């Protein structure tokens, strides 16, 4: 398990590789991917997940369902860093013909990927179904689901929230990427979602609100989530889309496009120097 300082450096390295990967692919979703780098890093390197790249089929492993499949570049990058595929494959094959790293994930693309996603609103149902089946067999692992704020426009998301509340699925930890943007603009302009916390609580969920870039908070929230009985848990993670690259941060225009070569160069410089805060650049 890494220290907080190590996690922050790992997250920066993952962001940099994600930029390289997106730039080479020439298409893909930048803002959401960068915004979730800290959470993915903490899950895989912060001691939250029970997982073993040498035994990806271990029945005791924790499961992760990604619902907003378009941020898969950050998942692929994290999985490569965790040892599930080579860095070469990660950097050079995103969205290429014949690749395992599809533009939106296919189930079994890489071993820990449990579900296909892309069409928004489907992932929580899948995660909840998986968790229900695990409950039937009294299995102990945790089922995580990462979902976006925009996909709360989808009715199916709320169907799944209702269902998990009814069944008190305390083996479900949903992590909501609350970055406030979607393709056409800000979520509260497109279709207001607030008060999200109260809505989940009214549906019989336990809600933990965190800064989604604060590794200590992410780890503490996931630990708390495991300790909650009789309720599914939502970690409402406030994130900054495009986090770490100033011209991408908070810009919904960066939802669905990759940087060009010049933008990538500047993005990588900012990430290496932590936005100019340090002189010694790190990988």
């Amino acid at each position, binding site marked *: 398990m890494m220290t907080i300082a190590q996690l922050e450096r790992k997250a920066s390295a993952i962001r940099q590789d994600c930029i390289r990967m997106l730039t080479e692919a020439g298409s893909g979703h930048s803002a959401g991917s960068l915004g979730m780098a800290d959470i993915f890093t903490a899950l895989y390197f912060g001691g939250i997940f029970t997982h073993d790249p040498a035994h990806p089929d271990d029945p005791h492993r924790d499961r992760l*369902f990604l619902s907003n499949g378009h941020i898969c570049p950050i998942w692929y990058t994290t999985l490569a860093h965790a040892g599930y595929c080579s860095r070469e494959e990660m950097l050079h094959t995103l969205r290429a013909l014949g690749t395992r790293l599809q533009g939106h994930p*296919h*189930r079994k693309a890489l071993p820990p990927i*449990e*579900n*296909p*996603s*892309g*069409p928004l*609103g*489907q*992932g*929580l*149902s*899948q*995660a*909840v*179904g*998986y*968790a*229900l*089946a*695990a409950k*039937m067999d009294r299995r102990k692992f945790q089922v995580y689901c990462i979902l976006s704020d925009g996909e709360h426009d989808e*009715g*199916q998301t709320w*169907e*799944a929230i*209702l*269902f998990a509340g009814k069944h008190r699925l305390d083996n479900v930890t949903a992590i909501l990427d609350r970055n406030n943007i979607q393709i056409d603009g800000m979520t509260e302009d497109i279709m207001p979602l607030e008060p999200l916390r109260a809505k989940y609580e009214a549906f019989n969920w336990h809600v933990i609100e965190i800064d989604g870039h604060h590794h200590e908070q992410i780890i503490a929230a996931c630990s708390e989530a495991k300790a909650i009985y009789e309720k599914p848990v939502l970690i409402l993670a406030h994130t900054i889309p495009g986090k770490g690259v100033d011209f991408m941060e908070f810009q919904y225009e960066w939802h669905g496009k990759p940087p060009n070569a010049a933008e990538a160069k500047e993005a990588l410089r900012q990430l290496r120097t932590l936005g100019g805060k340090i002189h010694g650049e790190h990988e």
Partner: protein
Amino acid sequence: MTCKANFLPFVLAKHLHAKLFTNQVVQLPTRNGYGDGLVLAGRQNPDVVVLCCDLTESTRSLAFQKEFPNRFVEVGVAEQNMMGLAAGMAAYGKVPFASSYAVFSPGRNWDQVRVSVAYAEANVKIAGAHSGISVGPDGATHQALEDIAITRVLPNMVVLAPCDAHETRKATLAAAAHHGPVYLRFTREPSPVLTTPRSPFMIGKAQVFRTGTDATIVACGPLVYEALLAAECIAGNGAAQRILRDRYPALTARLTQSALPGHTRERAQTVTVWTPESIRDLLSDIGRRDIEVINSPSVKPLDADTIAKSAAKTGRVVTVEEHQITGGLFGAVAEALAPRCPVPILPIGMPDSFGESGEPRELLEKYGMTAPFIIQAIGRLLS
């Protein structure tokens, strides 16, 4: 023209109910076979689970719920969620049967079926109740006439439309044993039980229910009975002809009196209203012929070998289904025969129209899916 066929079909005439054209034939809704099959599958495999969207009784999931309450999941009126839940349970290792009306599942939740199930190759069984126009009084919104088309088009999907309650029970068990997505459709109304408990059933296999040389009928679902009735009438079977004679005076009266206030006259004018006399004239025009009848419950994968072999022998085909003629069994048969045995094919099915309220028997008649229409189509192909 050379037509190739590699497989010998099952010849199953001996497996049909012995008293098919008497009033002793049992009438059961095919959904009952689903209910029986679920319980058997549940006993055979502890991983079988059933999900249902507030339609437990009418989809016949109730018996499973009673026997295995801990393996039954009431989802509420939320078909999209149900399909996602089923996909998640399948990813875990369960064998979920997701049950609802076909208009809602796979209708309303088609994207979930496409991505969460078919693309994922999830081991989910989708059970669509109340398929076809014979749903009756509930009207067009509840009559699934597009479900074969929208499932057949999905890669990895198996599509089954069994002909009676026995076959639906076997199809349910076959679906449970098959690893991968399966869509299984069944119907609400009682229909003749024309097979026996011993008649074989296999995914991907059609069965020749009646052998003949002059034309081939390929049918699925309860209308297989109408296909057999049509073939027997053309063969001069007095018992079969008597069934039609007895059926029509009352039906003719009901159809001709249907010009109620607000009734669409345009459609009424296009409807052929059969009478015992017009059926007799139709049959005498055709003369005695020998018609092959193929039951094709496995719409996908289609048993193209059996169908092509028959088409090569008879040179003409009629397809029969309780479904839109676009995209269903007609489409599947036409696609299979076009490259290897292109013979004339006429479809019996829903003529690019929505249904409406009415009694099942009236609706099948009004939209042209009963034995006299099949006989008429064969007559057109023979002339």
